Structure formats: C-alpha cells, structure tokens
C-alpha cells in the first residue's frame, strides 16, 4: 500500500522477554501465553495475528498489566523505554499507564462509560495524569485537535456515548488513546465489531494518527487482509507461542512456518472457491500442551524430531524469524521436499 511508510528506526521502545501468562482453573493452569519474546521499534506498527484463543489479547493485557483474574503473569519481563513494567508499584503503574502504554480496546461499543459525556472521559485521563487543568479554553482546544486528528466533528464534544455510531465511538477511543502521546499504543481488535467500510476508515485513521503523533503501535487482529495494509511487521501466534515474526511483505510473499502458510492460504479469494485447508481450531488441551513443537499435531510436515525438541527461533532472512525445525540447517533436505509438496499439492 502506498499509504504505508516503512519505518527505519532501530531504537527499541518495547521489549517483551520470556513472557508467560496462565489462567488458573480447577483442573490445572491453562497456558495462555507461553514464553514469548519480541521487540517493537520506534515508530513501527506490529501486527499480532492468530486464531481465537491463541493468546494475542492476553499478551496485550499482559503488557498493559491488566490480566484479569484468574489470569496471572508467571514470569517474564516487559520493558517500555527501559522501564520494567512488572516491577512498578501500584501508584507508579497508575502514572505509567496511558503515558507509557495506552489501549484502544476491543469492544468499543461498551468501552465508554455510558453516564459520562465524551469530553469528560477524555478530560479525566488528561487531568489524572497532568493535574487539574485550569485553562478550560486551552483544554477544549486540545480536545478539538484530537477530534480533528481522528476525523470527528466538534459537535460530539458534549454528547454521550449512546448518541454516537460505532465507528465514532471507536474513533473517540483512538483520540483518547493518543491524548497523552504515549510511547506505545496497543489496538486490541479495534476494528472487529465494525462493518467493512467503517473498518477500513478506522484502520486508516489509526495509521494516520500514529504517523502524525509518532507513536509505536501494536495492532492485534485476525483479519489478515486488513492487517497487511496497515502494519510493518507481523507476528504470528499459535496456542500461546510466537511461531513467526517478519516484515509484512515477507510473510505474505514467503511464509515460512507451516501454520502461517495455512493461515495465508485460508484468506478467502474472490477469483476461486477453494476448500479450507485449515479446518478445526487448536486441537490440544491447553493445560497439557504436546511435547516438542506446539503445532506438530496439526502440522502436515511433522516428523519424530518435532515431538522431541521444541524448535528455537531460526533467523532465516533479515529480521525474519521462524520457530520450526524445518529451518534447522541439518534438515535442509526435508525442507526442500516439504516446500516442493506445498508448491504442487
């Protein structure tokens, strides 16, 4: 897409290291996020994809320190601009929120307080971080500017959320999310509940605002088509593991992990009606994941070795990492055969 600018900065603004999140259940812990690590560069847009239940939203809430009970963070490290989020005291965390990390929520329909005016919900976030604003006129101008950034009319200033359409509510959430110019913004399925036209407008607004304000963005979603248009890099998650992370062009042109290949193959095409190759959801019990590779039960190329050892991330091309034994140097022959079957099924 022409509207997307690739970023060049190498400065890391968010680094997630070995993050593990469990949900406690009476039958044992469900492993929602299993030792994932990734980095986000300044000004970059990173897409986080995967099917429902793969742990992408849990990862986001983990980064924001908002994992709701019975979920809890087992271990890991989350650094935003060299601040270790997991070590913050309650009051420090409160101040860090929204200035360091902000959230554009999943259910924008219900994400605004129904009994507060739109302006008051933006003012409260400004005032709880920057103190009481005595210059009300300047405050109003500041909010109008935010509205303008996301393409909202000024007349909604005094309105209540129920008086807005879904797309407007979502844009209010975007305006709110960038109000304090945070370092990192996480958009958790920000467009999922909208129709395709509004989806597109909201997604473009998101990218435009991100570029204007210069924040780094993590976009979580399952719509591969929409993500392809707005992100710089894509991280693919499967059952709590990050299986592949690469610049967006590489992922679509040359997907390496068998799961990514299936995922991209499942994008519906208007030219042909093809059967869905990837059928059922995650098959194993999330309390007892299979040994070795997490994907081996559904992988068309799995062999004995996959059950023995967990694949480490292999750096295949520049910035293209994949966690699959096929990309181990010693299994080169197997990889060639596998790729051949993929080309001529």
């Amino acid at each position, binding site marked *: 897409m022409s509207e997307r600018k690739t970023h060049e900065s190498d400065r890391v603004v968010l680094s997630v290291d070995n993050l593990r999140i469990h949900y406690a259940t009476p039958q044992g812990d469900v492993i929602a996020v299993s030792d994932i690590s990734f980095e986000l560069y300044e000004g970059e847009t990173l897409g986080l994809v995967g099917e429902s239940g793969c742990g992408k939203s849990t990862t986001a809430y983990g980064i*924001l320190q*908002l994992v*709701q009970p019975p979920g809890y963070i087992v271990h890991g490290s989350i650094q935003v601009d060299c601040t270790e989020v997991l070590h913050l005291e309650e009051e420090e*965390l*409160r*101040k*860090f*929120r*929204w*200035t360091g990390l*902000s*959230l554009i*929520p*999943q*259910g924008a*329909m*219900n*994400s*605004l*307080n*129904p*009994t*507060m*005016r739109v302006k008051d919900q933006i003012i*409260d*976030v400004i005032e*709880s*971080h920057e103190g009481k604003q005595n210059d009300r006129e300047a405050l109003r101008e500041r909010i109008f500017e935010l509205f303008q950034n996301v393409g909202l009319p000024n007349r909604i200033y005094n309105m*209540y959320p*129920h008086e807005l359409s879904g797309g407007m509510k979502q844009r209010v*959430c975007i305006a*709110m999310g960038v109000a304090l110019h945070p370092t990192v913004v996480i958009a958790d399925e920000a467009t999922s509940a909208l129709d395709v036209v509004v989806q597109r407008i909201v997604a473009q607004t998101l990218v435009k605002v991100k570029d204007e304000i210069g924040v780094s963005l993590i976009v979580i979603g399952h719509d591969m088509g929409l993500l392809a248009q707005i992100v710089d890099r894509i991280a693919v998650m499967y059952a709590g593991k990050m299986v592949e992370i690469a610049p967006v062009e590489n992922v679509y042109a040359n997907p390496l992990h068998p799961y990514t290949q299936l995922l991209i193959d499942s994008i519906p095409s208007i030219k042909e009606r093809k059967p869905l190759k990837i059928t059922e959801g995650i098959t194993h019990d999330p309390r007892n994941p299979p040994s070795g590779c997490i994907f081996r039960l559904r992988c068309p190329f799995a062999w004995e070795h996959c059950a023995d050892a967990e694949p480490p991330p292999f750096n295949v091309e520049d910035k293209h990492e994949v966690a699959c034994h096929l990309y181990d140097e010693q299994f080169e022959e197997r990889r060639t055969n596998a790729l051949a079957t993929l080309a001529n099924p």
Partner: protein
Amino acid sequence: MGSFSLNYLLRRLLVFFLTIWVAATLMFIIPRLAPGDPISAMIARMSQFEGFVENADLIIESWRKRFGLDDPLYVQYFRYLGNTLRLDLGYSMGNFPATVAELVGRALPWTIGLIGISTFIFFTVGNLCGALLAWYKSPKWLKVMIPITMSFTSVPPALLSLLLVYIFAFQIPIFPELNAYGRGMVPAFTLEFIGSVLYHGFLPSMSIVLATFGYWALGMRGMLVTIEGEDYMILAQAKGLKPFYILYRYMIRNAILPQMTALTLSLGLLINGSVLVEIMFTYNGMGSLIYASINTLDFGLIQGTAFILIVSSALAVLIIDLSYPLIDPRISLEGR
C-alpha cells in the same frame, strides 16, 4: 442529560391522578364492607361505661343523618370525591369535632420527617457499604464488619425497635423509649426543641435504617460485581485513573440507576413498616393515627390517613420518575 417534553409530563401527571382516584375509590368501598358501623360501635362503647344510653336510637339516627350515612351509596360516593378534591376530608367521628385534615396535618410532618430522614440514611449508608464490599481497595475489617451488621436485614423494623428499646432505653438508658419530643415541651422552632426531636427520633429511625440498609448494600454489591466485568472498567484501569475516582465515577454512578428504581418500588413497603415502628414508640405520626382510627372504626380518619399516605407515596414516585433523565442520560422523556 436527557430532556423531557410537556407531553410526557402531562401523561405522567394523568397517571398520577388516576392512581389517586383509584385509591380514593378503594378507600371509600373497603371500610363500608367491614361489619358494624362506627356510630353503633360508639354507642355500644358508651353503654359499656354507663350501663345504658338514653335515647340511643335517636342519637344514632340523628348522627347518621348528620354524617350523611342515610343517603344512597352513590350520593355518598360523589360527595366524598368532591370533598376529597377540595382536600376536605370531613370530620373524624372518633375525635369529633376535630377534622381529619387537622389531625393529618398534625401527624404528617412527623412521619415525613421520620421516613424521609431514615430513607436518606439507609439509602446512602446501604449503597456506600455495598460499594465498599465490592471495592478491591477497601480495608479487610470493613469487609468483615459490614456483613455482620447486615444480618439485621432479615428482622422486621418493628421487632428491631423492640430490641433497640430494650437495649438502649432500659438496659443502657441513653435514649428515650417513647414519644417524639420531650414531655411538656411545646413544638416550636427552637434549638432545644429540634434537638429533642432528633434525640427522640434516633431509635425509631435507627430501627428502620438497620432493618433496611443491608438490602441496599446487597443490591449495590451485586450491581458492582456486574459492572466490574464491563469493557469500560478495563479501559478506566488502563487509563490510569485514580482508584477512588473509578469507584464513584465509573462504578457507583452506573450502579445507582437500578437502585433508584428499586427505591421507588419499595416506598410503599417502607411506609407500612414505619407504621408499626411509630406505634412501638408512640411516635405521634401517621402510623399511630392509622392505628387509632382502625381501633375506633373511625371511617373518616381511616380514609383520610390512608388516602394521604397513598398520595404522598405516589408523589414521591412521581418525583423520582421525573428526575430520572437527570441521573441517566440514556433516558430522555420525550413523547415518541
């Protein structure tokens, strides 16, 4: 903030007057279905003391004429409706020549005061306790204390007043056991008199508050548990708002709406409960008046007191109803 139109206001007023008309009609019919009539009952009582009453038949006849009890029922009914419209509730047959309006006028402020203040206290305290029970930051000892205090909720207020009188008027005599103000005092707007009223009103209103606030605390806590799962609560947390601000602006503010609805629904029940409490304390309000009027089969007074109570609770419901758009912006009372 929502708005409401003249159209809605008129419709709502119509319902208000309809309620009052139905109530007035029932008030007229029900006492006349009871056996006996007040004049014969009075003569019978007199003859118990005197042994016999001279010219009893003549007295009965002249009184029936005087009170219009010989007219056909429908004439009595329309006369009654007309009088009610003018707020002329007639004479009290038991306290002749005092009028019902006089007696009610003397008793009503006491009851409104007792119920009004009690309602204010239990609604505030109850909702606050409920909120503190649900809030993650409230201290542990509160979360133990409040449920213990709430066990009074299953006790009827009248029974609770017995208990309170026993403890705080007889065992530890710090509060008076009877009356609405000090013996020998003349009602006046003096500091001394108001102090005495508050002092005497403490136990009666405490028995209403203690018996009721737990209900509101439970309701509030239940609502807050639901609200905690809402998307806007997660966003409020992510926004890094101050915890107390989240509690009152995001949680209580949204939970108070159904509580207000419940309050309108419970007003009638509340008045019933306070009638018994008033009798316990010989508090000279509407409750005691109703009690006395039923004891003496005083038609006029029964009708008058019950009617005024119905009007006041209908009025309270009307006020809460009309103030709804002020507290819930999603409700606008526009005629559709």
